[in-house]
């Protein structure tokens, strides 16, 4: 899939995943997206981490770092602010998808 298509919806994907799965780490998010979409959508690290850092900066995500043997792992989870933003984001996404459907398949409308 063209990564440009994914760019605008990456934040929504991340927040939705964290809302459904609780805390997750960066690599786990990329693997989960691959698994759920049957390898159709592959989130690149170059897109994932800037998004995670931006959402953390905005207070949408909380972070906790824990030791996992000989290295540390950063776990992301959704904050209260993130939960309230998710509802709006999902509604926007649904409206966008419906509009795209109308544009691409006008006969169905």
């Amino acid at each position, binding site marked *: 899939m063209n990564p440009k298509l994914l760019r605008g919806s990456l934040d929504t994907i991340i927040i939705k995943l964290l809302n459904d799965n609780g805390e997750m*780490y*960066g*690599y*786990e998010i990329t693997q989960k997206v691959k698994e759920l979409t049957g390898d159709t959508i592959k989130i*690149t*690290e*170059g897109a994932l*981490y*800037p998004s995670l*850092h*931006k959402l*953390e*900066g*905005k*207070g949408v995500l909380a*972070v*906790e*770092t*824990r*030791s*996992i*043997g*000989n*290295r*540390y*792992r*950063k776990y992301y989870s959704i904050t209260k602010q993130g939960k309230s933003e998710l509802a709006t984001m999902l509604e926007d996404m649904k409206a966008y998808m419906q509009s795209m459907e109308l544009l691409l398949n006008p006969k169905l409308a």
Partner: protein
Amino acid sequence: MHLSENQIQWIFTSVQNKGVNYIDVQHEIVDHLASEIELSMETCPEIYFQEHLDNAFSAFDSDFKKLVRTKEKAMNKYWQKKTLGYIKSYFTFPKIILTILIFLTCSLGTILVGKSILISFVIASILLVFGTFIHYYLRLGFTDIEHKYLVLKMYMANTIGMTTFAFFILNILEMFNSNEIKLIDQHWYIYTASIALTIGTIWCHACLTEFPRMLIKDIKEKYPYLTLAN
């Protein structure tokens, strides 16, 4: 399959060689690469570690320097939000009552102290010394490692940077009052100086109490590998 201590250290070195100098940023990238390598080592155990590492770097698909820049921006925004958010809380109920009291005290102080040029000069000097004290207090003993951690760099930029600016403004106001123009007789000077002193007082209080607490809490939760000197 878990990677050995030496292999993890080698990934750290490789990440640093790619231009990622902040230790806190390195940790996240290293964990990502290590997870990728561990998975691929399970599926292809016959391949050497270095080849797995090279593959993981290729799959990472990111310009590391760009990644650091976006992290810097996000971290700066994070500390701006935290510090300015705390100051803003002094302008909402019930803290605004305290802010008004500080403002009235500052106004009275400005009028009384401003009458004497000598006292104005002394106040300006005290502010300078106090500003320097806060500058060192905020460092919490991490002067040597400040440049190695992005979190410390951004914390300093948003606390010391602002403190230096605040004391500069306060000193200018005090110094101006010490000349022959006698600004103290003008209403705009009293208002400006009082507002600057009020915000300066709140900022100093936050620098001595809340901001270091915010940093220590963040370090405990997000950077357990970072130890401060005191």
